[in-house]
Structures are given as structure tokens and as C-alpha cells.
């Protein structure tokens, strides 16, 4: 599917890839792809091990997670206050703040700002927010070419592909595939790949370096996302590894940063928590190679024109839901993807959402409305591994269960009479909501041998779940039963 034409992405809503099959179907296709599964397993196991080393080394890791969750809780409960403070700080430091209610508004603001500079090309730092609003496509429609500069994003863009992981978007591609994409497509976008390009990662990285260098040295406008922004000082932070971020944030004359409203943190000093939590959870490093922090504009150093676009695009709907609200704490580290047994087997594309994995399963339905992504809250085993891994302690299983109930409600409201599926869902969610019932169902199933699995997946659920499971596979709980999880995580509170 082509990114450039906008044919793959729905023009109205870049957050869900409409036209892609719902999760159960897409997952079945992905499961049949052995190369994909091999690439995924290798990647997630490797990052998982590194993350455990990096977090295990910090004796006060749990205290850091507590602080991270608490800072985000404080921010969410007083979001209007902090955003107004951020706006004042950025403006005082010489930047301009814009507010965008939805994707279309954000895209219009960015296109207008770019057009005003006279530039037709922009360089981009990898950012989930701009992917979410389909910015590249919108800029394309306005006659502006956006160049992705993160190596993985470059692979995705050249290959007319979609990202499949938050941190390593081209995780589903191996080096031979990447070589072929570079050899075939680099010339169409700028400097071509060397004739004799082989599939050594060093050589591939070098080809990307040469290809992008020309763009960095001439670009007049850059577009970035933001990992954090401190309300008290107006300081914006971008963490990265390759230096493409620094290139974009430093060399062009104009910098436009698109930031979800939930990325604000109260104080500059609060960054001390997140700059510890993020790299270790994300890449399993003590610190990522480069972190850039800037406050408005600095005469003689870096962009002299800085714009901060604050993006809602459904986030206030998430805020409204007192259970779902905690999802806004997400710092996009991707730790939950790497520990998720479902993600490891299906990959990111199966979610049909800009945000894949456990975080995608809870965030996307909330951003777009559960009726538009009804299968995503079910794309999980509720094993709780994501909750254990999350550096800001988002209780993803809790939100999943909550959203499952909302899916059923939405279904019931939409149709005059409940469909058989809605009834089965209601039964399923009643059981999943109740630790005792599920425990009984699982034990009964195990004891009676009525739980038939094939290829590690439950084909048939017992009792009230049968009709629901007849139409979909249920991945078995990976590490513990829901009941055990419930006892440990919910009842103790």
C-alpha cells in the first residue's frame, strides 16, 4: 500500500488503518508468516533481555516507576493548568504555540507554517504523533515532500510499508529485504544507494548516512515530535540514538514540533525521572546516545523560528474516562510490545493501528472510539506482562477489561436487538470481569480436558464462552491465569 498516494491510509483517520482486516483475521495471516515470526521473536527476546539488565541494575527502579506514574497522574488531573503554563513559558522563550483540536487542524497548521517559509521539503524526526495524524500525506497534498530521517522510518518510507513497532518500526524486515529496498528506491528520493551495496548492517547504515546527509545540510524546515515538555520552563525534549534528531533540531532555520497534549510534565526537574525510565525501558540502555533539550529559540544557535503544535485528536476523550485516563501516561517506550506474547506472534501490522501492541490495544480504541476498533481490546491474553514492564505503571489489563465491556455496550446500543456475537461478548466480558467465574471456567476446562488447543491457541472455550470462541481463537494466558493475576494485582489494593 502506498503511503504517498494516501491510498493505504484513510484520509479521515490515520489512527486506524481502515481497510485492513480486524485483528483476529490479520493475526492469523501474520502467524502463517514464518520469516516475520522469526524476525519478531529474535527482536523482542533480545530487547527484553537488555531491558531486564538495564532496569535490574537500578536499585530504586520501583521508586522511579512510582514517581513517573505519580507525575503523570498529577499532570493529567491538572492538564489545562500545565498546558497554559507551558504555552506561557514557550512564548516567553521566543517560540509560538498552536492548538489543534484534531488531525485535520494540526495538518493545516503545519502545512501553513511550512508554506510560509517557502520551503517545499521538510526533514522529519520519527514521531508517533505525526504518524497518527497522517502528516506526511497531508503535506504531500499541499505540495510538500516530507523526508523521514530515522533509519527505520526511512526503510519503511522507501519500502512503502507501515511501521510495525514503536521503537524499531522496521523490525519486521531483515537485512536482505532492507538492502533490496535501498537498492531499488533510494534513487527515487535523492542520492541513490552505491552500486555494490551488500546487506551488511554497516554498509546499509552508511548508505543511509550518505543519502540523508544532503537533506540535512540543505533543509530549511524540520518537523519533530516531543518526548516531554516541561511546563515551568518551556523546555522540550527529544531522545534518540542516530543523530538524525539532532540534525533536524539544530540545522534548519524553522522547527515545528507536534506534541500530544499529554506529553507535558510539570517541571524541568521532573525530567530526571523520565530520562531514567525511558532509555532503560525502551532500548535497554542506561542512556540513549543523544538527548536534545531546548527552550524556545537561542540567538545564533539552532532554529530561529520555533513552533509548538499542541495536539488533542481524541486525547480529551481518553481523559474523560477515569479508568482509561491512565493510558495518557504512556511515554512510548515500547516495553509492553516486547513482553507481549500476542505481539511477539503477530507483529505490529496485525493491530491495524498506528500504536501497536498492548498500548495500541488500549490507546487506539479510546482515541478513535471503541466502535471503530472493536477487536483491539480483545487482542490480549490479559497475562499482565505489559503492566509489569510499563515504566509508568499503566494497568493495561485493567483498561483492556474496561474497554471490552464498552465494546459490548457500544454494540448493544448500535443495534436494536443484541446480536449473537454481542451476547457472547457480554458473557465473555462478564466472565473476564469476574475473577471467580474465570477461575472456575479455566479450571473446569483444564480438568475436563475440554480446552482444546492447536498450535498453542485455545480453539474452544467452555460454558458461556463457547459461542464467542467459535468465531475466534483465544490465545492462552501466557504466564499465569487471569485469576492469579487478579489476586496479585487487584485484590491487594
Amino acid at each position: 500500500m502506498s503511503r504517498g498516494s494516501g491510498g493505504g491510509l484513510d484520509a479521515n483517520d490515520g489512527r486506524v488503518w481502515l481497510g485492513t482486516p480486524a485483528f483476529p483475521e490479520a493475526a492469523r495471516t501474520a502467524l502463517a508468516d514464518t520469516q516475520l515470526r522469526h524476525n519478531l521473536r529474535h527482536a523482542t527476546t533480545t530487547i527484553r533481555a537488555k531491558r531486564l539488565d538495564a532496569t535490574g541494575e537500578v536499585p530504586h527502579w520501583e521508586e522511579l516507576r512510582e514517581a513517573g506514574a505519580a507525575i503523570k497522574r498529577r499532570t493529567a488531573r491538572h492538564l489545562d493548568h500545565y498546558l497554559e503554563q507551558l504555552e506561557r513559558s514557550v512564548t516567553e522563550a521566543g517560540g509560538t504555540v498552536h492548538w489543534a483540536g484534531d488531525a485535520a487542524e494540526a495538518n493545516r497548521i503545519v502545512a501553513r507554517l511550512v508554506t510560509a517559509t517557502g520551503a517545499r521539503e521538510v526533514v522529519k524526526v520519527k514521531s508517533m504523533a505525526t504518524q497518527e495524524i497522517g502528516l506526511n500525506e497531508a503535506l504531500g497534498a499541499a505540495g510538500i515532500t516530507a523526508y523521514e530521517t530515522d533509519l527505520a522510518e526511512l526503510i519503511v518510507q522507501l519500502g512503502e510499508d507501515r511501521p510495525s513497532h514503536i521503537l524499531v518500526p522496521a523490525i519486521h524486515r531483515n537485512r536482505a529485504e532492507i538492502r533490496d529496498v535501498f537498492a531499488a528506491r533510494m534513487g527515487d528520493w535523492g542520492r541513490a544507494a552505491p552500486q555494490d551495496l551488500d546487506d551488511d548492517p554497516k554498509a546499509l547504515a552508511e548508505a543511509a548516512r550518505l543519502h540523508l546527509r544532503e537533506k540535512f545540510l540543505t533543509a530549511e524546515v524540520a518537523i519533530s515530535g516531543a518526548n516531554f515538555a516541561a511546563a515551568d520552563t518551556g523546555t522540550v525534549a527529544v531522545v534518540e540514538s542516530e543523530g538524525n534528531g539532532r540534525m533536524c533540531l539544530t540545522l534548519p532555520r524553522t522547527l515545528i514540533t507536534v506534541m500530544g497534549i499529554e506529553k507535558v510534565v510539570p517541571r524541568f526537574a521532573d525530567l530526571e525521572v523520565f530520562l531514567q525510565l525511558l532509555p532503560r525501558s525502551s532500548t535497554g540502555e542506561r542512556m540513549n546516545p543523544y538527548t536534545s533539550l531546548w527552550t524556545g529559540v537561542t540567538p545564533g544557535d539552532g532554529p530561529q523560528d520555533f513552533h509548538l503544535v499542541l495536539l488533542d485528536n481524541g486525547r480529551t476523550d481518553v481523559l474523560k474516562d477515569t479508568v482509561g485516563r491512565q493510558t495518557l501516561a504512556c511515554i512510548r517506550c515500547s516495553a509492553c510490545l516486547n513482553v507481549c506474547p500476542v505481539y511477539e506472534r503477530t507483529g505490529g501490522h496485525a493491530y491495524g493501528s498506528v500504536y501497536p501492541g498492548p498500548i495500541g490495544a488500549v490507546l487506539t480504541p479510546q482515541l478513535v472510539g471503541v466502535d471503530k476498533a472493536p477487536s483491539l481490546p480483545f487482542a490480549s491474553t490479559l497475562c499482565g506482562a505489559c503492566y509489569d514492564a510499563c515504566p509508568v505503571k499503566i494497568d493495561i489489563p485493567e483498561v483492556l477489561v474496561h474497554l471490552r465491556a464498552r465494546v459490548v455496550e457500544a454494540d448493544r446500543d448500535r443495534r436494536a436487538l443484541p446480536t449473537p456475537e454481542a451476547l457472547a461478548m457480554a458473557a465473555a466480558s462478564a466472565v473476564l470481569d469476574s475473577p471467580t467465574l474465570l477461575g472456575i471456567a479455566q479450571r473446569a476446562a483444564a480438568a475436563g480436558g475440554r480446552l482444546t488447543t492447536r498450535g498453542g491457541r485455545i480453539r474452544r472455550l467452555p460454558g458461556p464462552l463457547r459461542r464467542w470462541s467459535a468465531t475466534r481463537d483465544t490465545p492462552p494466558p501466557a504466564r499465569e491465569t487471569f485469576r492469579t493475576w487478579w489476586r496479585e494485582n487487584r485484590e491487594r489494593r
Partner: protein
Amino acid sequence: MTDERTDRPRPGTSPAEDDRHDRTDTGRAAVLGRIRAALGDVPADETPADVPVPRAYLRTTPPDDIVTLFAERVGDYRATVVRCAPEEVARTVAALLERRGVRRVVVPDGFPPEFLTRTDADLVRDAPPLTVRQLDAVDSTLTTVAVAIAETGTVVLDAGPGQGRRALTLVPDHHLCVVHPEQIVPDVPEALARLDPRRPLTLVSGPSATSDIELRRVEGVHGPRILDIVLVTSGTPARPETPETSETPETPETPDTPGART
């Protein structure tokens, strides 16, 4: 950079139309209104400080020898650390530049001239500011640092004297920085407490790197491929002085004094 702005592109969708629109801040009012409506469950008299933020993480004990820890941790990132006595810095800098084959090196204002006495590389000043192309044509940049972080093996640049603007340590392929022991702090919280957020800050942990291709680490994708650190050893490694307590009006419960950790 050539200026091509005489030829303005014709906008595909007419963004000019929105000019007035954005300026009147309809987006702002709408978003803030939705946020306030969404937070109906938050009591009207609740203040941010009413939401507690536990800071127990600050109570860690740094190792005695943070200078050695810093050197080890930087080494983990495939950067080179060379420790030398104060009177050896000029010679060490010269030797490293030679080892890297550096012929032209940018020296920012405020970089100590006594560190430059032994090298025969061409010294280039950034005054008047070099164009990006000129910068691309030099081999290396020499800097001091604002702060260094032992636990993570990080150096922090704040564009202060001896560091220059951010582009200097980004475009050339080699970056050599001189670190003094008293600049090393144990961890990230102490580093941020020492920094001025109004300055542009860059935290550097090893050379640029990517792991995007089969998670194989490759150094130097866009930033400098080589990072050399000269660590000035002045007899017994010094303990960092305690930074001043930062103003924390919003969080009175915060034990933000790094002194509390020892």
C-alpha cells in the same frame, strides 16, 4: 545555504485561508474547554500539589569513586576515555587528533588555549559562524563540557564557553571533549539540577548509533562516528560539590536536595 524563497510553492489546500482562523485560537478554547469538561471528577479545589509525587528514588548512594565509574560507563558505549594529568592534556589532545587523522579542527570560543599547544592540526574558529558546508569540511571538534554523569556515562553540553553552538559537535565526524573530575556528578537528577534549562542542552552518551537493522549496533549514522574523552585526573579523584537546592514551589514534599542522599 542557498535562498530559494523567491519562488513560493502554490499551496495545494489553501492554508492561507486558515491564517485568521488559527490566530483567533478557536483550537485553544476548544481543547481547553474539552479538558475542563473531561476532568469533572477532579474536585474544584484540588491543586496540583494535592496529587502526591513520591521521590523515594532520590535516596540512592553513589559509589565512592564516581570518576572511575564515569570512565567505565563511557567505555561501555564504545567511546574512548583517556585519563591524564593536568599537565598532560595538550599532549593527549595532540596524540588523539593524530590517531584519528585529523587535519582541521574547530575550536569554539573559550576552549582553553593551553590544551592546543602541541597539535599541528589546523585550528578553525567559529567566528564569524561557519556555514554548514564549511563545518562539514572539518574533521573534528574540540569542546569542554558543562556536566558529566557517572551512572550513565554521559557528557552534557550547554553551549557555554569552550563548547560552542550545537552544530559544532554534530556535523564533523569526530568529537573530542575534555572533562574535569569536578564536572562529574553521580546521576541524572544531580546533572539536571546543575543545568540551566534556558540554554540548549545536548546529552551525549557515546557516539551516535543505530540498532534498526536486525538490532545490530552500528556507530555513527548521522552524528560523529567517534567520541574521544580526555579525563583530567588531578591526583585523588574529587567528590563533586553539592549543587544548590533548586526552587520547588509546587512540590513542597520533594526532598530535592541531592545532599539528602548521602
